[in-house]
């Protein structure tokens, strides 16, 4: 079971409380995890990665096991601890003051 922790705004949007647990078939990568996440919660399509290009939105980051995986290939395997469900994949909004 893959664990994913979303930012508060996306949890509210998708009506999720706490972590999401997902079954992911095949290799556990950013792409396969996000595919499974969006299949379960279609409202999240376009909010984490672009509808068409599938690129990560600029102000979001992917962390796991205290590492920044944002710039890894979306098809690179995630750390074993994520694949084993010991650690969550964190989707994190960039810290910004802004408006």
């Amino acid at each position, binding site marked *: 079971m893959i664990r994913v922790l979303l930012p508060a*705004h996306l949890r509210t*949007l998708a009506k999720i409380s706490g972590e999401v647990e997902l079954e992911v078939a095949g290799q556990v990568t950013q792409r396969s995890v996000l595919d499974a996440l969006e299949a379960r919660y279609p409202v999240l399509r*376009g909010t984490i990665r672009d509808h068409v290009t599938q690129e990560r939105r600029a102000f979001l980051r992917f962390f796991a096991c205290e590492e920044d995986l944002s710039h890894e290939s979306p098809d690179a395997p995630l750390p074993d601890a994520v694949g084993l469900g010991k650690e969550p994949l964190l989707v994190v909004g960039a810290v910004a003051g802004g408006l």
Partner: protein
Amino acid sequence: MSKVRVLVGTRKGAFVLTSDGKRDKWDVSGPHFAGWEIYHVKGSPVDPNRLYASQSSGWFGQVIQRSDDGGKSWEAVGNQFAYEGVPGTHQWYDGTAHPWEFKRVWHLEPSLTERETVYAGVEDAALFRSEDGGASWQELSGLRGHGSGPHWQPGAGGMCLHTIVQDPSDPGRMFIAISSAGAFRTDDGGKSWRAINQGLRSEHIPDPTAEVGHCVHRIAMHESRPEVLFMQKHWDVMRTDDAGESWKEVSGNLPTDFGFAIDVHAHEPETIYVVPIKSDSEHFPPEGKLRVYRSKTGGNEWEALTKGLPQKDCYVNVLRDAMAVDSMDSCGIYFGTTGGQVYASADAGDNWAPIVRDLPAVLSVEVQTLP
């Protein structure tokens, strides 16, 4: 007795304000979508309980919300706005070519006649239509393909299509406005478009009377006279009596003709309202006095409306989509400020009072008059 529902979009959520026909006591519901920018909320003229909201965020992009119970509950619908074909380029601020990129939905305009049809004006400028209640969106690409698209350029707020005005007497005719390209009209339901900017003059472009490049801020129409339009341009208040074929300036005795919002009295098509703002570099009212100006002559002759509005130390702005009118017998006028106040007048502007005063910065105000 009729009721009034005011739909308010702010920098940090949406609010729904309701009152009976007296409009002196208001119930405030919200924030809906707390923490998100709500550029616009608008109800369907066909089914007033059908509302649409544009919810966006720099982090998470665009979401469209729909309500079928007047804003009590909401459902996220389609949020994919894909330009048709190869988007091409427009001008960047320095005149260089810049690729078209979708950023957000500025304005949602439900159809006057079809419950499931709604239009969306977006940044970078384009017009989309949904015929399934917002589940899916298709670009009306004839606008962007007008030919002048490569010469459009963003205003300070972005290159947004912010105004969509449908002609109630002709389902094929629609007007839109883009900052900073100008106004356009279709007569064939959105297939083809023509620029309708003759008579506009803008000193910030090399040719001040060019076909496109004008920073139109807002256009308003009275439903009884769809060929008459009123425009608040970046500078200048303008009017056309021939559906945009030609415009003439009606700024008259305004203290400044810069501003964003403009609207028309519900029952008096020659009575119009603006909120003058000092300048494009000082986005606040002149002299720190928040004044609505009313013309009962379709422009040129304006009177300041001040009763109940702050007349000292007021430095808020009133944005382009943040003024609306109800259609009660005594027409109500409403506007929201970047200071978080929504002011209302139940007597066509003679007297004002805040109906809510500490919201996040107000981006848009729409009003529904309900049975």
